[in-house]
């Protein structure tokens, strides 16, 4: 028990082993579809931002400082005359990179260490889990703050700092999935036919855990984007001029009264992304767990 995510109990359903019908179901799920409708255009815009006829994200323009949203600048401009839309798109790039990197790191380490712990049990399990317990003893933002203050700020340290808080949670999740009755049955069956351990793990145990892990990963990605924003606020995140959604919002909120758009526009985008990642995870969950489909 006690798997702590952003909202801990959200993860509790993961302990019920779902069937794995592949990922085809996504297209058939309403929430997942909505999520994709929001995410895909943002992703495309971000990917092709540099090909659009827009000024560069760092390019300043002293004649167009703090302009309201207009046709020319749909999100307005900031204090240095930079286009907020362009900066937001560049920020989305960075933020998504942070989100997905964290999710991938957490996923990889979580699967490997969690499977080892669950599968081998005994001393290995105890050793891994006591280290996990130590890391779980820190609230996640605290751990990130502590690490960033040691390693320094910047893209890579921030990703590592956030991921380190997530890895132990994924290890725990994966371990509990491996230890679930369904996996147990597989293990016992395979043992009776003397299958190799590697074959057993890669063919039967890990695939069974992928869907719930994906659910957790999309929540972790959304969470990472928000944690980066908090770190940026405390001056410990990704530093200007490289725009992350977090630092654009932080800088912009100082002008909330004079130029609301500087921080509100990227704020809306961050919300849209996080929200759709949550919908995506809900979609996966509902598709897998008929009990939740109501």
């Amino acid at each position, binding site marked *: *028990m*006690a798997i*702590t995510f*952003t*909202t*801990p*109990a*959200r993860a*509790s359903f993961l302990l019920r082993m779902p069937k794995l019908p592949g990922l085809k179901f996504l297209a058939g799920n309403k929430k997942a579809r909505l999520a994709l409708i929001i995410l895909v255009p943002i992703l495309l815009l971000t990917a092709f931002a540099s090909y659009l006829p827009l000024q560069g994200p760092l390019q300043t323009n002293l004649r167009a400082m703090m302009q309201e949203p207009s046709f020319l600048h749909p999100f307005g401009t900031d204090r240095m005359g930079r286009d907020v839309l362009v900066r937001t798109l560049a920020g989305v790039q960075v933020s998504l990179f942070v989100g997905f990197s964290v999710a991938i790191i957490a996923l990889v380490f979580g699967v490997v260490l969690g499977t080892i712990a669950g599968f081998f049990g005994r001393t290995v399990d105890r050793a891994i889990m*006591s*280290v996990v*317990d*130590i890391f779980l*003893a*820190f*609230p*996640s*933002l*605290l751990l990130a*703050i*502590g*690490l960033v*203050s*040691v390693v*320094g700020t910047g893209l890579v340290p921030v990703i590592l700092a956030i991921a380190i808080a997530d890895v132990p949670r994924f290890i725990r999740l994966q371990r509990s999935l491996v230890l679930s009755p369904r996996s147990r049955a597989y293990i016992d069956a395979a043992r009776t036919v003397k299958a190799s351990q590697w074959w057993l793990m890669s063919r039967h145990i890990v695939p069974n855990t992928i869907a719930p892990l994906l659910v957790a990963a999309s929540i972790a990605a*959304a969470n990472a984007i*928000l944690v980066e*924003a*908090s770190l940026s*606020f*405390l001056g410990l995140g990704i530093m200007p001029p490289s725009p992350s959604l*977090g630092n654009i*919002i*932080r800088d912009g*909120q100082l002008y*909330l*009264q004079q130029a609301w758009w500087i*921080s509100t526009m990227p*704020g809306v985008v*961050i*919300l849209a992304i*996080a*929200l759709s990642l*949550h919908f995506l995870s809900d979609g996966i969950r509902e598709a897998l767990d008929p*009990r*939740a489909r*109501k």
Partner: protein
Amino acid sequence: MFTYSLNRLLQLVVTTLGVVTLVFFTLRLIPGDAASAMAGDTLSGEALDRLREQMGLNKPIWVQYIEYLQNLITLNFGETITTGLSIGGLLSKAIPITLAIAVATIVLTIIISIPLGTLAAYLAHKGHKTLDNIITGGAMLVDLMPSFWTALVFLLLFSLTLGLFPASGTVSLDDPAAFLHRIALPVLVLSVTQIATMARITRTAVLEILSEDYIRTARSMGWSELRVLFRHALKNAALPIVTVVGLSFGSLLNGTIIVEFIFTIPGLGSLLVNGINSRDYQLVQTLIVFYALFFVSVNFFTDLVYKRLDPRVQF
């Protein structure tokens, strides 16, 4: 139950020792040190070395570690490097304040989120999709807003425009009414996120119970909807809700750091940010250990409560 508690307690001790060791050594990997961080622009060369010696930073690291462990066990946290004040004294002032904020947040959260979540579940159960979606969607939206953003909007709205709550001022437990008035805004900001989370969990839990057989039975016996909802459904949904209250302490502690900074509340979070800014090892390591200990203990008690409420739970 007893063996379980004992085992869990032992685990707690091992984890704590691990935390202490990890924190101590990690903080010493910092490039530069407290002395050079303190010196800033003004010092260099010899003067800096003298400062370092004065701070005890030139002792071998394992000597510093052993001394640190000894002091922790005897609850002697020493003095901060930069200010020379007793850390124990600082903690004893900061802890009640942070604790009061945390407790107030939890109380406010429970009062608002449980009826809200139950209502949403009821609406969903009765097929009122739109209303349910508004509540759930709203909760999710609020949940995702960065707290530093909410904090500033609340400051501008409740403090500057409406003039309801102060933005700054003394924080003292001596005058409970003034104290509550002062911490109202930070608690509100923190609660908003917590309420969103808790309402969604309550909704899910209650919704699940509502479709159980015995609820149908209760209904068929002609009991009022309210009674069914609050006497039976909510009572049975209590288990996951209690767990979440315990577990959300982690995110609550995260939240206090930022909120204390913005509203200048002299609690643990403010001390931590001060300590990190001035690279005060002594202070930061004590605080992080304290946070961790706090968090681990809450988890420990949550587990015990859970175990008590539901004897089926296997650990």
